[in-house]
């Protein structure tokens, strides 16, 4: 099992580098992952997307695709790319402590 060092802790991550245990996740960890991903400071809009993503995952058992994420979060695709450049669904899932969306098959 791979691990990722965040804030002095070694946390288990999967082959995509996403957290394995949701219990390892908290807002402080999210900010640290965002920094590692080059996102910078997380604004209210970032948090709205992250929360929508977690809510959808808890309901569906899968992190939503970009298309579904726009429906869930009310944030349009263009803005999602501004908030989470280079693959909003992938990036937001990683920061939200979720596995990569299975939409990529």
């Amino acid at each position, binding site marked *: 099992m791979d691990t990722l060092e965040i804030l002095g802790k070694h946390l288990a991550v999967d*082959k*995509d580098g996403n957290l394995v245990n949701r219990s390892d996740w908290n807002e402080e960890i999210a900010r640290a992952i965002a920094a590692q991903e080059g996102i910078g400071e997380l604004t209210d809009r970032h948090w709205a997307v992250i929360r929508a993503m977690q809510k959808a995952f808890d309901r569906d058992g*899968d992190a939503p*695709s*970009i*298309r*579904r994420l726009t*429906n869930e979060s009310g944030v349009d*695709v*263009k803005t*999602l*790319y*501004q908030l989470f*450049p*280079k*693959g*909003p669904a*992938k990036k937001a899932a990683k920061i939200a402590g979720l596995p990569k969306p*299975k*939409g*990529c*098959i």
Partner: protein
Amino acid sequence: MRKLVILGGGTAGTMMLNKLSRVLNEDRWQITVIDDSETHLYQPGFLFIPFGIYGQKDVVKPRREYFPAHANVVISGIDRIDADHKRVILEDKSAVDYDYLIVATGAKIRPDQTEGLLDDEWGKSKFDFYTLEGAQRLHRFFESWHGGRLVLNMTEMPIKCPVAPLEFLFLADSYFTERGIRDKVELRLATPLSGAFTKPKATEILGGLLQHKNINVTPDFGIARVDNERKTIVSYDDVEVPYDVLVSIPTNMGDECIARSGLGDELNYVPTDKETLVSEAHDDIFVIGDAGNLPSSKAGSVAHFQSEILFKNFLDRIDGRPAHARFDGHANCFIESGFGKALLIDFNYGVEPLPGKFPLPGIGPFSLLHETRMNHYGKLAFRWIYWNVLIRGVELPIDSKMSMAGKVAA
């Protein structure tokens, strides 16, 4: 009479029709298949048409030739499924009642979903090869093309046959080399994925092949629109990729009748239990092939493996037993790599494609994740197997469950 209705007479629907009509007693069962056309298309063959390897006769057959004689065949568009009243409404508003329904309505390309894609230049400088007409138009275009920038763009996942875009580029490399103009053709893949494929080990190996064949990659490219005046595709984060010819894999969506029925997700795919293949909303509706939302590849081999699971679970259901068979996401795909060679991948929900030998461990004759001539012959033989064995619902000597035998773990 108990009534089974199968929506769609393509790969998945035809397989289920043939398998079930052999075991359901004709005196007690009426089996109806509904499709909007008389023509069965061999979709895996479309890939070869732009390069003149296959023509129309290789991929088109009369649908009814592959249906059992006693099947009730209805050629009509479908307005919607009325699941509450267990009936299918046809486009002329007549109704077909069912006790059980198998949805095999597939997936289609939707170029209308991307801004600027479907305009006057569609079929002139912008093409698809996921339809017979599109593949033929591209073949005519290539015959008189002297070179330039060819960009292949996948708009969004999931798509049917996720390896087809790579195969297209490998075959293009081979085709333009043989025509003596490879040095005048720039090949580029603009993909929403972070690399060549969706799974890590295969991405590493296929990415290496792309590089080796001098095919450029623009990863993480989420297309926002086509700028037709500047012949440029533009991403949501303003990355621009100019082209002379754009080969698009447009957004794939389930049939519109699924949306009209209120049975689909945001891409018109039917939410389906990924192991039992039963609709999540209605336990008398089964879903097979590209029509469902399973996290498995949308491909003929996958529909074939699903057909064995669905066959067992359907018989359980009509005899009042709980569905016992479980689909594991098994997919098995040849990947044409050009110059008469191909690779093979074999994987499921949990196990990514790995190197090794298939189907016999250590022997093959096929090699997993490795380019060989034998794999290419396997790919070409598959067309014969498709028409003569697969869609006729005859057993193939490959287990529907993936096996780790012969694979080298990562």
